[in-house]
């Protein structure tokens, strides 16, 4: 058996995640193994397992065939975790998704604290969404709390949860691009630069942004060059101090919110350009294609508020609904969470600039198209945006779709469609190469067309395709 180390799991020296035969294994040291045995006896862990907010995990015997190679490699024990079906990262989440992840982190910390435990870090990379539900996956983060130990993950929580949420809620600045560029989050000093005038007095800014930033600037000023670092041990912190800080942080995070605006796509279900009959034909075409593909995982790229993701979700096990419009994605997430029928994972992404491989050695966080593989991709009324707005040539877009090795439902929007006309109105470049004949020729290089349906009097056409065998 060949166990492959998961690139993003190297930061904690107490363990490492491996993938072997489709199973998710974690080699851990003796202390982490002992902690896991104790953790399973706590009410925190039991209650979280009942609610499904921590990943299901179990110790494997040292002689278990999949555990043996990791034991031989020097790990003291092996824990097996349930596989999370789809991996996503915080810079692909909407505001409400990051907020729910933050609240889960704080709730787990708070209940663990009451039983003498703590979470040794506070990173949203320890949380995954199983469809529209956040779940904590880094079990070795739970450690017994030392006597008088402060909240060690406080600064990391601020940098990766609180500050991004504050930026969007208070300043209207999307956090996704900032988190994508800064995997460790936003430092207090950087964050302080976003606030001036009265905005400094918004709830929590003075205490969690400006005060720590001022303290850190002071340290930088007094310990630069060869000046020795001062010891900053503050002795034991009373339980009430730590508990109060966690409770105060929870109230602050819960109070952060955004107004959902009528953006380009957030009202799609009411503002789309189809007549009722055409829209019905389109829905039925997608439903039949999804059923025929027997797809376990569907990607709906350019999903808007997920009208067609929901149709695919009737037959697929998991659907990733991707769109570049934050409010459209947030609306879908808010609708899906807690419905019990939430097998859709909504994500924010500019499809002309999908999440890349990056982090340590360029592999710590994987590109969107390298960490999940679809069985069916639906790209409805997307190609004109890719070709005419993002300047991605038709052949390149179709080559990328083909590289996903999935079945495809794609809608071509022709030059005489009113929405294409709108896109071309003020452009000098008129993209003469953008036409149905070119599109079909490029499509047939990689796919076989198995069904077609015209919409809107022929200005749009749906194509159901299967990949040609290379």
């Amino acid at each position, binding site marked *: 058996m060949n166990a492959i180390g998961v690139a993003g799991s190297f930061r904690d020296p107490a363990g490492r995640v491996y993938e072997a035969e489709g199973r998710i294994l974690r080699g851990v040291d003796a202390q982490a193994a002992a902690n896991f045995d104790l953790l399973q006896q706590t009410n925190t862990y039991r209650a979280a397992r009942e609610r499904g907010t921590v990943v299901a995990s179990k110790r494997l015997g040292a002689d278990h065939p999949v555990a043996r190679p990791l034991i031989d490699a020097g790990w003291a024990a092996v824990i097996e975790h349930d596989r999370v079906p789809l991996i996503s990262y915080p810079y692909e989440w909407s505001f409400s998704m990051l907020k729910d992840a933050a609240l889960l982190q704080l709730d787990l910390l708070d209940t663990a604290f009451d039983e003498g435990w703590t979470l040794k870090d506070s990173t949203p990379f320890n949380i995954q969404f199983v469809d529209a539900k956040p779940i904590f996956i880094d079990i070795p983060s739970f450690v017994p709390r030392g006597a008088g130990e402060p909240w060690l993950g406080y600064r990391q929580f601020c940098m990766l949860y609180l500050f991004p949420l504050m930026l969007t809620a208070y300043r209207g600045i999307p956090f996704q691009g900032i988190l994508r560029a800064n995997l460790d989050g936003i430092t207090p000093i950087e964050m302080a630069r976003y606030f001036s005038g009265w905005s400094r007095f918004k709830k929590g800014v003075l205490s969690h942004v400006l*005060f720590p930033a*001022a303290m850190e600037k002071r340290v930088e000023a007094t310990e630069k060059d060869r000046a020795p670092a001062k010891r900053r041990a503050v002795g034991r912190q009373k339980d009430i*101090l730590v508990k109060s800080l966690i409770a105060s942080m929870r109230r602050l995070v819960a109070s952060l919110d955004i107004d959902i605006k009528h953006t380009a796509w957030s009202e799609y279900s009411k503002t789309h350009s189809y007549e009722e009959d055409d829209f019905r034909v389109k829905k039925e075409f997608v439903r039949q294609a999804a059923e025929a593909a027997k797809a376990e995982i569907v990607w709906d790229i350019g999903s808007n508020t997920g009208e067609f993701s929901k149709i695919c979700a009737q037959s697929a096990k998991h659907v990733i609904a991707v769109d570049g419009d934050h409010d459209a994605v947030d609306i879908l997430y808010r609708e899906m969470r807690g419905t019990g029928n939430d097998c859709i994972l909504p994500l924010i992404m500019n499809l002309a600039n999908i999440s890349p491989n990056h982090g340590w050695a360029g592999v710590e966080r994987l590109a969107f198209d390298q960490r999940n593989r679809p069985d069916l991709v639906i790209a409805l009324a997307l190609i004109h945006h890719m070709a005419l707005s993002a300047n991605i040539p038709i052949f390149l877009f179709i080559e990328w779709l083909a590289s996903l090795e999935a079945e495809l439902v794609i809608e071509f929007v022709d030059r005489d469609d009113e929405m294409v006309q709108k896109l071309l109105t003020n452009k000098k470049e008129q993209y003469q190469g953008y036409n149905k004949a070119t599109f079909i020729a490029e499509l047939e290089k990689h796919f076989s067309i198995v069904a077609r349906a015209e919409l809107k009097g022929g200005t749009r056409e749906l194509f159901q395709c299967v990949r040609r065998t290379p």
Partner: protein
Amino acid sequence: MNKLNKCDAAIIGVLVYAASVQPAYAYVDPGSVSLVVTAILGGIASVGYTIRLYWSKVRDFFSRSRGSHHDDTTGRGHQP
């Protein structure tokens, strides 16, 4: 002006002593100061926490006769 919480109000005074912007230095660990930050913020938060705790007990005492019970000291109204 937006709502200030108790931590914010208390922290205004502490901010006065450090105003200048300095660049980051490779051997300096500004994050080490978060131990001090959590001690101060925790101290301030604990005042409000204690008041909330006792206030909820007083409220419970008077509302018990009406058959209602409320003991939310954490502000936990929202579950993800």
